[in-house]
């Protein structure tokens, strides 16, 4: 395949701690919120936001590569989940 067949896709990965995994940052934020007068804020969870671009032939390929990258590096599947958003880009 030639380069001009590739597209650029913008990828946004949200890394979330899995349910039940300790989240001290989220717990600390949740404890601080009422002092500002916000009532009813709960279930605060802090994650990570990772953005990158990926060259791929189509969106399915880009998504497959992003999922593989998340599974093998960007998350630890024992304690974290990834939510992947992909925006189609332009021909490179």
């Amino acid at each position, binding site marked *: 395949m030639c380069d001009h067949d590739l597209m650029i896709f913008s990828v946004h990965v949200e890394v979330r*701690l899995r349910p039940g*995994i*300790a989240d*001290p940052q989220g*717990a600390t934020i949740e404890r601080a919120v009422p002092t500002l007068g916000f009532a009813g804020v709960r279930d605060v969870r802090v994650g990570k936001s990772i953005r990158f671009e990926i060259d791929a032939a189509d969106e399915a390929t880009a998504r497959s590569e992003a999922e593989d990258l998340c599974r093998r*590096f*960007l998350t*630890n599947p*024992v*304690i974290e989940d990834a939510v992947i958003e992909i925006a189609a880009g332009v021909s490179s």
Partner: protein
Amino acid sequence: MSRRVGVVVFPGSNCEHDVVEAMRVVGADAELLWHGDATVAGVDAVVVPGGFAHGDYLRPGAIARFSPVMGAVAQFAADGGPVVGICNGFQVLTEAGLLPGALQKNAGLKFLCAPAQLRVETTDSVLTRAATKGSVLEVPINHFEGNYTCDPETLARLRDEDRVVLRYVDNPNGSVDDIAGVCNEGRNVVGLMPHPERAISELLGSTDGLPLLRSILA
């Protein structure tokens, strides 16, 4: 008897000199192994020490596992060589897939730095073969992400195969099943959160780390 011990140094490691000194106290010829060199230099045992390898960026141990030395450590472990990961080193070994499970943030949401009582659950591992089963050792802990977790199937296997090497007497961090240290199937790779290298002299408050460190050489 194993005599040459290699202590892996990543950018951000900070316990490597303590481990070298402690291994010398128990009779080893200890040396540092730079993470950028893809070799364990023919040593007889490898220790991955504590600290903040690669700044703990992304996750503790997540970047360290890509360091060139880790391929050599994995091969050394596959060949049956003794490999012990202490604290951040334990996190590195789980991220590298040499040990099961993961270390999450402490359940009490606090960084913990205190003596901990550990019970030796098996002497069938490279970290406990010179220790006494059922004995209780006082060894310091010093961590934020020391809360061991794994899926229920993995936990069942660890129990069934007698691979929980050390348990906390009073669980300080929420670790599942009070686990302080585990080993691999071959029993030659062990990870633990407590720091045996900090319990090698009465001046440090405990000498209970010595039987663990001697085990590495046994």
